[in-house]
């Protein structure tokens, strides 16, 4: 039992964060506004190995597990990177591996193909324009052309639905990675609001000296702190195909949604009227959080799944049930 990432994984995260801080900062987001794509960082993310992160080593990847994948998704959410990388490398790749469909994995690892995702729970398809394939319940099909739609998120492109069936396998992976991106967005919104509170002066002092400001930000920090480990457990459970994995994913999506929505509302309040403008950067993350909160099962959908498990009696409850083990399941 060790609930801790290795130093190697920490180093990878540091590297990705520092790259994205430089290459995908607020200036980049403003430049991409309205014409989203991969933000020109796709090739760099490929060379960092991220498209092959979850792909087995014999297919040219790094062979990491979903827990490492969610950590990368957190960083991509923190930098507000468009979704082709998450959808292709962190959702489609593990889905294909789990189905034994290995023929495109080397291509994915090498950065040579982009995959959009389709599922009836959120029939509008994100980032279909740059995609080579569309992944549905039956596997990969050539990306169809459908009508472009408008979304509130200026860094996300959305397209009209296609007729496709969907299962929980894809939904669980995508909900997990959506939760991860939302926690990244939460962390960034907390940073933005904290920085603003240190800088903005009223009544002759930074507003961050006032307890009314401090306490709101502290409450967001608490939400974020206690959502993270829920995400890690879900990732490990899904990776190991544990019986309760779907419920853990739903718990993670709930916790991440609540953290992100609280962070967004708190951050806009602390920015005051500036927060209500298009001029400060906050809105990019806020709108991404709104989009992800509804995607891949909204709060009610995931709540119901937890409800069925907990009150519906599908799982054993109690202090010895935190992790699945032979002893606990006996």
């Amino acid at each position, binding site marked *: 039992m060790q609930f801790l990432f290795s130093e190697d994984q920490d180093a990878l995260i540091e590297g990705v964060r520092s790259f994205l801080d430089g290459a995908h900062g607020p200036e980049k987001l403003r430049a991409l506004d309205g014409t989203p794509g991969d933000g020109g960082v796709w090739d760099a993310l490929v060379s960092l190995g991220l498209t092959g992160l979850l792909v087995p080593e014999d297919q040219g990847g790094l062979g990491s597990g979903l827990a490492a994948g969610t950590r990368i998704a957190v960083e991509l959410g923190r930098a507000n990177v468009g979704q082709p990388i998450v959808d292709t490398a962190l959702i489609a790749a593990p889905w294909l591996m789990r189905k034994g469909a290995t023929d495109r994995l080397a291509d994915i690892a090498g950065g040579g193909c982009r995959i959009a995702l389709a599922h009836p729970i959120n029939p509008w398809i994100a980032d279909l324009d740059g995609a080579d394939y569309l992944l549905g319940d039956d596997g990969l099909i050539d990306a169809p052309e459908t009508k472009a739609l408008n979304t509130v998120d200026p860094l996300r492109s959305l397209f009209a639905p296609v007729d496709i069936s969907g299962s929980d396998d894809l939904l669980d992976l995508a909900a997990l990675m959506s939760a991860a991106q939302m926690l990244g967005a939460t962390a960034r919104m907390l940073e933005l609001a904290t920085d603003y509170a240190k800088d903005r002066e009223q009544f002759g002092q*930074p507003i961050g000296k006032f307890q009314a400001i*401090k306490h709101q930000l502290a409450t967001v920090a608490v939400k974020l702190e206690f959502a993270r480990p*829920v995400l890690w457990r879900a990732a490990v459970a899904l990776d190991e195909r544990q019986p309760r994995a779907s419920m853990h994913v739903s718990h993670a999506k709930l*916790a991440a949604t609540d953290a992100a929505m609280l962070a967004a509302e708190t951050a806009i309040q602390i920015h005051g009227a500036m927060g209500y403008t298009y001029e400060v950067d906050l809105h990019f993350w806020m709108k991404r959080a709104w989009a992800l909160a509804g995607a891949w099962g909204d709060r009610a959908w995931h709540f119901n799944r937890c409800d069925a498990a*907990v009150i519906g009696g599908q799982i054993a*409850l109690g202090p*010895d049930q935190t992790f699945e083990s032979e*002893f606990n399941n006996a």
Partner: protein
Amino acid sequence: MELRYTDDQQAFRAEVRAWMGAHVPREPLRTLECEEGFHQHVAWEKTLASGDWGMVTWPEDYGGRGLDLIRWLIFEEEYYRADAPLRVAQNGIFLLGPTIMEYGTAEQKAAHLTPMAKGETIWAQAWSEPNAGSDMAAIRSTAIRDGNDYVITGQKTWSSRAAFADWCFGLFRTDPESERHRGLSFILVPLDAEGVTVRPIRQLHGHPGFAEIFFDEVRVPAANRIADESEGWNVAMATAGFERGLMLRSPARFQAAAKRLVELYRENEASASPAAHEAVVQAWADAEAYALNTYSVASKIMAGGSIGSEASLNKIFWSELDRAMHRTAMSLMGAAAELQPESGENRWLEGYIFSLSGPIYAGSNEIQRNIVAERLLGLPR
């Protein structure tokens, strides 16, 4: 990331489970806040000690088993799974014990740790004063050096367990000219010393769970001071860190309560509101999140890390979770929530009353939010 228990850890769980199954009292004890319940709980501490379960993480030399934090979590899970009594020894084993382990002399360790782990000495806290609550640096009680002794004069209040405890520990001003957090020392005082008067205070539930302590020229040996003179503030902050941090409220306690809350919901499903239904699921989710976070912190500490101001995040989370969980139980019970049974206690009502103190003791949650904002987020003081 390795979220599976080893065979050894599983065997340890089985050992704890078997012992608890054989020893946990079948009838619930009275509340430890009343005299009868206090003594019942002290007797339970001695039973625990007879199985060497007093404080499993402590070295064997001090009545412990020298186990790591993962095994401590397993122990706690089985402890609360068995619905074992609350720990009347908690001020000693969770707060003063770790403080003495870190700052105490060999003599102090030898004198105090083993009796603590064995339930032979029950400790009270003596921090707050009438004019020093959240602003603890406003402490005025003095301990004036006289030869090899200190002579203590002043008043402490909200002193948990003091009504029935044997000793207290707290901060006293050893430099009478000093101000604020300078000039304070951390001193241990036997509550039967001449000049000590303990006046129990009735708490919200009617029992004397805490007390005022009056010190009228109480003479204690200077050897009762932990760490150097005037270093008391730093020692107290470390103790407060233990209190808010990992050990005081182990997650198993809340997971066990969440399980009972689900059972209460099922019994009252027909009359439950949708809001209560949602709150029950949320209580489960938050208790799980707290447990996961504790495993994460324990793993970090075992790998050589430490917790500092992060302890404040913990304290905010568990205290507000506990209150929400018990509020939900009160709502599910409806009109029956107020009833006191003829024998024993209305457990949810007692728990709700106790949960209201959680956001206040161990540093109010307003103070905790200041700490998070200033020390973790870097906002200006």
